C-alpha cells in the first residue's frame, strides 16, 4: 500500500488503528502520517485505550495457585534487562582504534550496525575495503552482539536504505548506505514515533563516506516507527514527509 496517507484516510482508520486491527503497512503509514501532521487527530487519540475496557469487562478468572509459584521461581533466576545492561557497562573497558572515542557499548552497536549494513544492504563497499582488520574485529563484535540479543530493523526511503540496530536498554545505531546528500542549509532529523506522536532523537548531516553511522541514544521500546525527515534546522516536530521509515514492530 502507499505509505502516504492524507488526514481523511488516517481519520477513517482511527478505530482500527487504536484497536490494532490494521495491517502492519497501514499501521506504519498511519504512524508516519501522525509524525508529520500538524492536525491533532483527536478522534484517533480518544479511541486509544478502548480495548483495555473490553478486558476489564470480562469476569476475572483466578489462575491456579501453581502459576504464581512457577512465576516466582522463574523470576528468581531471570535477570532484568536494565540490570544486565548495567553490569555489562560496568564490566566493559575502553577499546582502541577507530571506535575509541565511543563508549564500549555504543562502539559495539556501531560495529554491529556497520557490518549489518555492509553485508545486507549495499554489498561490499570500496570505502571500507581498506579497513579489513577493523571489519574482522567488528565481525567478532557482531557475534557477541547477536548472542546478546540485539535486533536490527530495516529502514528504507528515498534518502537511503539501511538498518537501525538496537541494544536493549542502551539505545541504537542507525546505519545507512549511500545516504542522499543535502544542501548545506539542510540536515536530517531522526524521530521515534508511536500513536501519541514523534519524539526528536537527534540530527545529522551526510558525511563524505558511503556509509553513515549515527548513534541513537534512546531506548526503542514502545515505539512503533522510526523515521528521518529533512529539516532546515533542528525542530521539535517534523515539518515534512519522512525520507526514510523503519517498522520497529517487525523484529
Amino acid at each position, binding site marked *: 500500500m502507499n505509505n502516504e496517507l492524507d488526514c481523511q484516510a488516517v481519520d477513517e482508520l482511527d478505530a482500527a488503528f487504536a484497536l490494532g*486491527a490494521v495491517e502492519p503497512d497501514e499501521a506504519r503509514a498511519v504512524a508516519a502520517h501522525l509524525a508529520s501532521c500538524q492536525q491533532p487527530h483527536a478522534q484517533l487519540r480518544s479511541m486509544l485505550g478502548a480495548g483495555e475496557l473490553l478486558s476489564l469487562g470480562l469476569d476475572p478468572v483466578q489462575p491456579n495457585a501453581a502459576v504464581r509459584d512457577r512465576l516466582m521461581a522463574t523470576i528468581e533466576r531471570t535477570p532484568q534487562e536494565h540490570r544486565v545492561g548495567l553490569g555489562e557497562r560496568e564490566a566493559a573497558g575502553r577499546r582502541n582504534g577507530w571506535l575509541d572515542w565511543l563508549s564500549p557499548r555504543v562502539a559495539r552497536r556501531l560495529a554491529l550496525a556497520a557490518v549489518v549494513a555492509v553485508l545486507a544492504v549495499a554489498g561490499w563497499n570500496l570505502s571500507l575495503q581498506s579497513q579489513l582488520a577493523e571489519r574482522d574485529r567488528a565481525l567478532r563484535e557482531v557475534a557477541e552482539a547477536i548472542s546478546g540479543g540485539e535486533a536490527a530493523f530495516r529502514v528504507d526511503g528515498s534518502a537511503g536504505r539501511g538498518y537501525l540496530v538496537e541494544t536493549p536498554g542502551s539505545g541504537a545505531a542507525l546505519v545507512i548506505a549511500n545516504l542522499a546528500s543535502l544542501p548545506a542549509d539542510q540536515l536530517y532529523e531522526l524521530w521515534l514515533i508511536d500513536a501519541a506522536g514523534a519524539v526528536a532523537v537527534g540530527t545529522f548531516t551526510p558525511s563524505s563516506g558511503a556509509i553513515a553511522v549515527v548513534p541513537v541514544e534512546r531506548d526503542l521500546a514502545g515505539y512503533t516507527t522510526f523515521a528521518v525527515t529533512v529539516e532546515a534546522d533542528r525542530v521539535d516536530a517534523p515539518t515534512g514527509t519522512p525520507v526514510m521509515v523503519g517498522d520497529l514492530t517487525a523484529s
Partner: protein
Amino acid sequence: MTDRSQPNIDALLAQRIRSGDREALGELYDRYASVALATALRVVTDREQAEDLVHDTFVAVWQKIDRFDPMRGSLRSWLLTIVRNRSIDRIRAQRPTVGVDDADEQSLLRTAANPTWEAVIARRSTAELQIAIDGLPAEQREAIELAYFGGRTYREIATLTGVPLGTANGRLRLAPAKLREALRMTDAAPAASAEPMSARRPDR
C-alpha cells in the same frame, strides 16, 4: 473486582519492580493475574495455554520493566496489552491463513493509553463495564471483539462478517463512540488531545 481506584499503588509497584523487588512483582500478580487470565482465556480458549501466557506476561514485565513509561499509560494497561498481544500471537501462529505478526509488547496497542478511558475505568465496576459492552449493537460488539480478542484486521472482519470494508470499519468506529456514550465519557478529560499529535513530548 480488581481495585481500580489506586493508580499510585501501581506506580510504586513499578518502581519497586524496577529496583529488583520480586515481592513487588508478586503483588502486581495478585492485583491483575485474574483479569490477565480472563483476557488470555478469551483469546486462546485453552486454560493451560492461557495460564502459560499469564506466566510469560509477568515474566516479561519483570524483565522489561525499564521499558515501561508511566507517561504513556498505566502499568495495568501495559500488562494487559502484553497479555492480549501475546495471546493474539499464539492464535495467529495456529491460523495458517494469517501471517504471524510479532505483536507482543511492541504492538500499537501498548502505546499511549488514553487518560479518558483510564479515568472512567477507574470509576466503574466490572458489571458496569459489562453492561456498557452488552449495550452495544450486536454488529458493533462483534466487530470490536473480533478486533481485540480475535486479532482480526478490519479487512478480515469484513470478510468474516460478509459486509463491505467500509461497513466493517464503520462498525469499529462506532463501537468506541457508543461505549463512551454509555459510560458518559466526555472529551474534556484528555486535555492532551488538543495538542498536535506531532508535537514533541517530554523526554522519557
